[in-house]
C-alpha cells in the first residue's frame, strides 16, 4: 500500500491473480504451473474433466491447502500462508462441492454465521448481553431474513438446515456465503445434482449476484451451463491450464474438445 495507483488503474487491476501455481500430494502432481487472472465484475469459469485439479485450485485460493510453489494475489496482496479464516475475512467466500451445511442449526442461523464477519461484539458483550450486542443481533437477524427472502428460503427460516432437500441446501450455502458480503465468490459445482429447472434459476441468480457487484469464479462440470453464463473460461486438463478465453472460443478449442473426448473414452474403457 505504498503507492496508490490512479483511479483508472485501480479499476483495471485484477481482483485475483494466480501465478505459476504448482501443487503435489506426495509424489502425485495435482496442478502444474497454472496461471490466470480474475478481473473485477466478471463471471469467470473453470472447466475440466474429473481429476483435472479444479477443486484443488479452489482449496489453494481459499487457503485450505498450501501450494508447492507459485503465488496467489488478491487485490495485489499475496495470500500464501494466511489461515483460511483470514483469507475469507479479506472478502473471498466459497461454497463446497459436497455441501457443508451446519447441521443442528436452523436455516436462519446458518446465514447468521455468514454475517459473523460484520459483527463486532466480543466474548464480554456476549456474556453480559450488552446493549451493543443486542442491537447488533437485531440488525443481523433483519439482514439474514432479507437474504433468505431473496433466495426464496424465508418460509423455511426456522427449520433445521439439514431437513432441506439437497437442491435447497446448495442454495442456502450460496446465501450464507453472500452474507459475508464478499468481493469474490467461488462456487464449486453449484449445478451438481440440480434439475434442469433448478439450473435455470441458478443461472439467473449467479447473474444477479454479479450485477450486484460480486465477482464470481465458478467451477462447473456442466459445459452448457458454463457457456451460457461465464464471461471468460479457463480450461484445466490433467493438472495443466490448456486454454483460456471467451466461452465460444473455448468450446471450439481443439485441446478442450480432446480433453473432454478423452474423458469419454477413459469413461468407456472403465
Amino acid at each position, binding site marked *: 500500500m505504498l503507492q496508490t495507483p490512479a483511479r483508472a488503474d485501480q479499476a483495471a487491476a485484477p481482483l485475483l491473480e494466480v501465478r505459476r501455481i504448482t501443487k503435489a500430494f506426495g509424489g502425485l502432481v495435482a496442478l502444474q504451473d497454472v496461471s490466470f487472472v480474475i478481473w473485477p465484475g466478471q463471471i469467470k469459469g473453470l472447466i475440466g474433466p474429473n481429476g483435472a485439479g479444479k477443486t484443488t485450485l479452489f482449496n489453494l485460493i481459499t487457503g485450505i491447502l498450501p501450494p508447492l510453489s507459485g503465488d496467489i494475489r488478491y487485490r495485489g496482496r499475496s495470500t500464501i500462508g494466511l489461515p483460511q479464516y483470514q483469507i475469507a475475512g479479506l472478502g473471498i467466500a466459497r461454497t463446497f462441492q459436497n455441501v457443508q451445511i451446519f447441521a*443442528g442449526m436452523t436455516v436462519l442461523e446458518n446465514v447468521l454465521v455468514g454475517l459473523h464477519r460484520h459483527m463486532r461484539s466480543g466474548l464480554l458483550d456476549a456474556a453480559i448481553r450488552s446493549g451493543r450486542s443486542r442491537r447488533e443481533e437485531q440488525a443481523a437477524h433483519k439482514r439474514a431474513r432479507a437474504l433468505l427472502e431473496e433466495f426464496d428460503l424465508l418460509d423455511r427460516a426456522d427449520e433445521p438446515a439439514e431437513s432441506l432437500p439437497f437442491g435447497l441446501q446448495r442454495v442456502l450455502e450460496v446465501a450464507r456465503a453472500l452474507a459475508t458480503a464478499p468481493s469474490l465468490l467461488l462456487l464449486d459445482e453449484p449445478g451438481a*445434482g440440480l434439475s434442469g429447472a433448478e439450473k435455470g434459476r441458478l443461472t439467473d441468480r449467479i447473474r444477479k449476484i454479479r450485477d450486484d457487484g460480486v465477482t464470481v469464479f465458478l467451477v462447473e462440470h456442466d459445459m452448457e451451463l458454463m457457456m451460457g453464463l461465464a464471461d471468460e473460461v479457463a480450461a484445466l486438463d490433467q493438472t495443466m491450464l490448456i486454454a483460456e478465453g471467451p466461452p465460444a472460443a473455448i468450446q471450439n478449442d481443439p485441446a478442450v474438445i480432446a480433453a473432454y473426448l478423452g474423458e469419454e473414452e477413459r469413461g468407456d474403457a472403465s
Partner: protein
Amino acid sequence: MRGRLSGSTVGFLIAAALVLAIGWLEGTRPGGVSLPRLTAGLLTLDLLIRAGVFTIILVGLNLLMGYAGQVSLGQAAFYGLGAFFSAILTVKARNIGIPDVVAGAWWWAWVVMVVGAVIIGALSYLIGWAILRLRGHYLAMATLGLGIAVFIILRENLGLPRLNLTGGFDGVVGIPRLRIGAYLVWPVHRYFMLVWAVALSTIALGLNLVRSRIGRALRAIHGSELAAESLAVAAPRYKAQILAISAALAALAGSLYAHFQAAVVPATFGFVPSLQLVLMSAVGGMASIWGAPFGALAVLLLEELLRTKLAVIFPGVKGEFEAVAFGLLLVLVLLFWPRGLTGRTPGPLRRPAAAKG
C-alpha cells in the same frame, strides 16, 4: 421481548427461589423439618453443594463439548488445579513467602480464587492452541493425557518434595472457611447459597453466550470447521477461548470445593472424576446450558443410591466399582439417550447429517 418472560428467565427465577427456600429451611429448620427428613435422607446440603460445584464445571464443559464439539476427557485437571491453587495459597502461604498480613486478611482467599481461575484459564488458552488442532479421538486422547499428567504432578508434589506444597497423596488439610469481612460464609446453608449463587450466575453467563454470535460460531465450528472458517470465523481462536473459559470455570469450582471440604487430595481430581463429568454432561444434555444442573444432580443422586443400595444387592462390591458403573452408564446414555435430560441436539459424538444428492 420487553414485558414478556422467556422460558429461561422463568426457569432461572424458579431455581433462584428454590435455592433461597432451601437455604432458609436448612438455616432455620422450623419445627425440626429439614431437607434430608423430607427426602428420606437422599437430598442433603452436602449433595446439593457438590451438585452446585459440578454445575459450574458443567456449564463450561457443555460449552466446550456440546456447543463447540471439542471433547475433553481431562476436565477434572482444571478443577484440581483450582482446588490446589486455593488450598496451597491459603494454607501454605508462609511456605512461599507471603506475609501473614496479606494471607491472614479475609479477602485473601477470594483474591486467590479469582487469580487462580484467571491464571488457569490463561494457561489452558496456550495449551488450547496446541491441542485443539487435534480432532475427534486425538483430542480426546490429548485431554485424557493432560488430566493424568496433572493428577500425577499434584500427587508428586509438583516435583518439589522439599516445599511439600500439594502434600502428595495426603493432600492439603486445614483450608479456611470463606469470610466477607467479619461475616463467615458458614454454617453449611450459607455456603450452599454462595455456591448456588455462583452456579446460577454461571448458567446466566452460559445462556447469554450461546445466544450470541460467539455461541453460533461455536456451533458452526462443531457442524463443519471447514465451512465455519470459509465464513471468516476464526475457529482456532474461538476453540482456545472456550477451552480457557471452561478451564477457568472448573478452577473456580475447584476453589469453592476446597473451601467447602477444608481438605483436598489429588485422587478427587483424577481420571474417574473426569469421566464422571462427561457422564453428567451426557445425562443432562451436552448441547444445553440447563443440562448442567440437571446432569449434576441426576448423577449425584444415582451415585448416592448406588452407594447405599448396591452393597445390598451385590454384597462385597465397593471402591473401584464406581469407575465401572460410570463407564457402563456413559456408554448406555450415549447409545440410547444422546440428547440427555434437556438437550436439543446431540453432543459431539453425533454423526454430521449426511448431505448427499
